């Protein structure tokens, strides 16, 4: 899969941004734009189960969103990251700072 597919849905009053495909130097701008738009509305969950690549540009987008969420007092969580995405988070050395959840119920 070379295309990034991002869709939005509301689940139990939570905005879920479902991301599938590679987040790399060619696609991170689209990811950033949609994530910015979503976080402007309120708390967001990024579903990353089908992410096939997560480059440093993509991690930077998520780091910036985490900063904004913390500053704005909003919530931002990462739902079921793929193995590739999890390894990318681990590579930062700060895996514990990424709010990873396995189910939306974890937010309750």
């Amino acid at each position, binding site marked *: 899969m070379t295309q990034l597919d991002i869709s939005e849905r509301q689940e139990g009053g939570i905005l879920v941004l479902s991301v599938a495909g*590679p987040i*790399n*130097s060619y696609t991170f701008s689209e990811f950033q734009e949609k994530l910015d738009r979503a976080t402007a509305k309120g708390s967001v969950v990024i579903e990353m189960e089908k992410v*096939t690549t997560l*480059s440093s540009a993509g*991690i930077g987008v998520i780091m*910036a969103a985490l*900063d904004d969420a913390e500053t704005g007092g909003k919530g931002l969580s990462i739902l079921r990251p793929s193995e590739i995405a999890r390894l990318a988070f681990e*590579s*930062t050395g700060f895996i514990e700072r990424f709010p990873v959840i396995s189910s939306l119920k974890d937010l309750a």
Partner: protein
Amino acid sequence: MGLTLLSFIAAALLLFLSFAASRISKGRQSGWLVVAMDLFFAVFALTHGLVDLISGIGESTPGLALSRIASASLGLALCSFIVFSLSFPGWQGIQAKIVAAIIAISGIVLAAWIIGTDHYIALIFGVPEGVIRFAGDGYDLASDLLAGIALAAAAFLLFRGFLAKDRIESQRALIVAIAAIFGLAGLWVLGRAGSGIHGASGGMQVLWSFHLLALPALVMAGAASYAIGIVRIFDWGIFVRRLLSWTILALLYGLPLGAVTAALVFTGRLSFTIPLVGAPLAFLVARQLARGFATRRLKHIMEQEYREGLESGLSHIDLSAGRDAVLAETHRLLGSAFDFTEFAVMIEDGKGAFRSIYASTGRSAVVEKGSKMLEFIETMDVTVLLKSEVMGDPRWAEIRPALKGFLDLFRGEAIVFAREGRRIIGAFVMGSRRSGADYTDYDYESFRSIYGKLFVIAYYLKNVARESLVRTVSRELALSDQVIRFALDKIDRIDAPGIDTAWATLSTHTLGGDFVDFVRISKTRWFFVLGDISGKGLSAAMNMLILKSMIRTFLRVEKEFPALVQRVNAFIKENMPKGTFFAGIFGYFDVERKAFYFINCGIPTLLLYSPGFDAFIDVQGEGRILGFVRDVSPFLKPRKISLPPGSVLVSCTDGVTESENLRADRFGKERLIRSVRERLASDARTITDGVVEDLLDFTAGRQEDDISLLVMKFRQSRSVT
């Protein structure tokens, strides 16, 4: 003894203040009076404390002599203060000198009278509880007279502070005067409290108030020493807001802590010793926690909020819109945030001269290469300079007229210099504020916080101004050439015999944030950095350039390895666009010791080929990227590896190991090792080119991420010296 200790602590602090004031006051009129005042106060505090120590039981002659020296020193310190107040901000004509001379002579006469007669202090008498001072018949009159004159001088200074047109002078006068009024009141109350008791009525009471006399002196000396060094307007609004915030926070944890401690002591569950040690420790821990909380949660309450909006605005300036649009937008954003109208930009023209490329006043200026002003500024390690500093700080005296003329030309009140190491590449001149208010120290900090953004703009403007090419072809491509050439030109290649070094950097967008850099520290030591700045294209390349420049700047001032890395971390976190981070490695090669010291900051691969084992060893260990957390110090782990002859060091960014082929297989470390091993007998250049070739073959020429690869061979045949 407990309270006597206060005098010695105060004496040490006063000595320190006099030393600091002597350094600050160089070139400042009246500054030496503050040094003299601090010194006299220090002698006062020291001798005052010694009286208690050396006086035995009964009448004490040495105690009496020291007590009189203490009082004489206090008198001389107050005389210094009076002269300082009357002559502030500088000597003003012959009349001031005459008045100063009269006061100085009076002070000396007063000191001689105190030391040589019984009229001021008649007797010192030691008792088991401490020392009793018996005042002479002139004590009350002399004390009241001296304190009264000093208070009048402070009031005079206060009055002049309100009237002064120069805001810096006004601020200095007000700070000294207010502190002096409180200090003198304290001295008078504490001194007088004693005189009535051990005067004629002669009660045998040991006076605690005498032990505290050094504290008001410390307040006066501290305020005066601080005030003479002020070169920027103090933002009282911000100060009050911060003070209130910290006071509320301190009360929030201090009151409960105090209440619990008191309850435990008074209910007998604790002895006095435990809270004496434990309470301050608990207070400090609670303070640290509250501070962290405040920094995270209350930042917007404690700070003005324009800074963040400005940073964001500058980050989003569209550099592809063209030079004029970039300049106009920069002017609009800065003018709106700092409330000024006039704005000018000077850029280095590639030949060392500075030319104005934008000036709202319509005027133009050229500062020629080699001009005294330019050379002087380059020797000063400043990025932000306010006009108030130019006018008030003696360090700028040498070029003050030229710099003032330059600022006046553009009606400027503040300058931000964009620098590459010591060299200046551009200057942003900000005009006076519409409200007429001066730039404060808070604005100064704001300018510093947007420095990284302004550097990017200056760098862009410098290259656009120089390369007409970019007007007709893709700006990004033209700039990439500039950026890469600059980056490569600056590398201090390792030229030690026995070390063969080669590297490669490839970017997906022609431009990228990957880079390798070597800086020669000494004949046998090189600093080294390899890594990847997040982001892509022009913005990543610009960030790479800024970071490279800042690392070289930090290297000049920071000698501690972990502290250097923390500085870089803080710079990324605070000055670069949100979400920016650096994943790489910092290290020092010590050629003489055949050792490599490094800190892994998120580098995925650092392999060492060991000829002894004929194997590649993963040596990078754990690492943390820079720019994620504000303080990365606790996570930094410096390591050392030995580099025996025949060993090969290979390091690369994730773009190498994580590149995928069409079947989504990763290149990985195994293929990297295989690729290097096949060429172990070749030189470093051949190995590097070979690995890149293998990688591109593997991905069928497709590249999805920036790549950096470094290979260093330590030759077997020759010793490394």
